[in-house]
């Protein structure tokens, strides 16, 4: 039996690592999506932000984030230790079909890439006008403290500031529609409100000007990367693969994740076609992502048709939300607040329809808690940074593009622009 436990341990560890590598890959997805949807003069900077925020997230979560969220050691002290006897004892206690026993290093690896995902959401929304180093300073606090604290209340079951317990209220967020996506969107929204819109985005008479992204193949590639990575994001969140029941659960999660993405894309594309008269590719891409965000709060209990419907509604919502935010002059170049925030909330709210273990009350309190905490904490941090160093580039730098100002380097130096 010990060999069986060891194989189960190995299989579950590997499953975490493969899923984690897929989630890591989402960092490339966000980079390409954002690089495709900004203007070419701001492309080098958004790329720099994306690679740097990923590194910062990994570093900060390693230093203190994981410790705050899951009571581990500072700097992952001791994570390298392995004790076979302990592993076997834990497996024995859990039983073959019980809780998963797997390498804590694989757990960290899987968790760390989630932090980076949350942070990636922010970069898109504040693109084309935020200072690079101010953004990275925010990333340090967001990934080192703000997100881990919120994560400790949800996935680690701690009381919210010692006051109430979300789990007890029936809050459930399988893979993080709220904990990761809406959290990222809340931080983004705080930043966007303080930053203001890009120059020229809104005209004097309330008209909305289009600022087309420079490279749609990149944006499409980014969406496909995210779609693929999401199998790791949701699939890994079953947390165990190594018995038949859990394996089937993981498979259902893959199936439903894909169905929701497809539904979201179809919903958004059709709505855009009807509303605008054209097949708006960027809306279709946002729709696919919306489907993915919508299903993330609970991809294991819906049937395939339910998952398709949840995704489709997510895709419809995201188009409406994007148009609505434009009306409110909340300028989000890539639609991150709509995709991850508005649809993330929707995802949380539909969980009780298919998962009896969750309650509407729990979902609402949970959503308010996450949003409230991240939004307020982020506002404070953005404000401090604003006072100390400023968060917005100068008008001239914005006009010339932040690439030259911040990175000294053009993204497409040889190509002539219109």
């Amino acid at each position, binding site marked *: 039996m010990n060999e069986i436990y060891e194989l189960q341990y190995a299989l579950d560890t590997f499953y975490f690592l493969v899923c984690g590598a897929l989630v890591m890959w989402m960092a490339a997805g966000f980079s390409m999506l954002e690089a495709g949807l900004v203007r070419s003069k701001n492309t080098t900077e958004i790329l720099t932000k994306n690679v740097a925020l990923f590194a910062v997230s990994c570093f900060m979560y390693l230093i203190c984030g994981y410790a705050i969220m899951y009571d581990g050691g500072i700097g992952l002290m001791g994570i390298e230790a392995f004790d076979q006897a302990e592993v076997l004892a834990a497996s024995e206690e859990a039983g073959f079909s019980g809780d998963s026993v797997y390498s804590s290093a694989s757990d960290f690896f899987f968790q760390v890439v989630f932090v980076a995902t949350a942070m990636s959401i922010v970069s898109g929304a504040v693109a084309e006008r935020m200072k690079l180093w101010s953004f990275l300073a925010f990333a340090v606090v967001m990934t080192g403290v703000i997100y881990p604290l919120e994560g400790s209340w949800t996935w680690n079951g701690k009381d919210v500031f010692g006051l109430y317990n979300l789990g007890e209220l029936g809050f459930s967020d399988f893979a993080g529609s709220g904990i990761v996506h809406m959290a990222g969107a809340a931080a983004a929204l705080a930043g966007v409100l303080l930053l203001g819109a890009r120059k020229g985005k809104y005209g004097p008479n309330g008209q*909305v*000007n*289009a*600022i*087309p*992204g420079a490279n749609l193949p990149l944006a499409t590639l980014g969406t496909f990367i995210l779609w693929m990575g999401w199998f790791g994001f949701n699939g890994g969140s079953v947390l165990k693969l190594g018995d038949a029941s859990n394996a089937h659960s993981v498979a259902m999660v893959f199936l439903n994740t894909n169905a929701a993405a497809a539904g979201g894309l179809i919903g958004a594309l059709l709505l*855009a076609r009807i*509303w*605008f*008269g*054209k097949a*708006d590719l*960027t*809306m279709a891409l946002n729709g696919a992502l919306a489907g993915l965000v919508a299903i993330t709060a609970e991809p294991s209990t819906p049937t395939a048709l339910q998952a398709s419907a949840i995704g489709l509604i997510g895709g419809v919502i995201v*188009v409406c939300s*994007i*148009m609505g935010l*434009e009306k409110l002059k909340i300028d989000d170049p890539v*639609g991150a607040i709509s995709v991850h925030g508005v649809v993330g909330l929707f995802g949380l709210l539909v969980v009780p329809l298919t998962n009896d273990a969750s309650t509407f009350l729990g979902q609402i309190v949970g959503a308010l808690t996450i949003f409230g905490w991240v939004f307020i904490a982020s506002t404070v941090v953005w404000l401090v940074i604003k006072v100390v160093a400023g968060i917005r580039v100068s008008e001239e730098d914005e006009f010339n593009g932040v690439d030259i100002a911040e990175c000294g380097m053009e993204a497409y130096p040889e190509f002539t622009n219109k």
Partner: protein
Amino acid sequence: MKLVTAIIKPFKLDDVRESLSDIGVNGVTVTEVKGFGRQKGHTELYRGAEYVVDFLPKVKVEVAVDDSLVDAVTEAVISAASTGKIGDGKIFVSSLEEVVRIRTGETGVEAV
């Protein structure tokens, strides 16, 4: 010497070049330009916001020729570039005081 400048529709470029060759013009200089005129631009859409692309792609063809050839060149351009639809473009004729071939230093008719 004269400089004949024609603003034409881009897809007519090859026709114009050929019809110029036919009347013995051996060199032209071509520039991508954008034109604004009676022909209206088109509307594009991006994430629900419409915007008008006012300026239409046009091509500017410049030919330096001897005075005697001006009419022939003008004719050739008109016949090759005309579609009868709005936006076909214009021809401008101006005077050149001097033309030099950089390679040889030749001037005037020799130079083109």
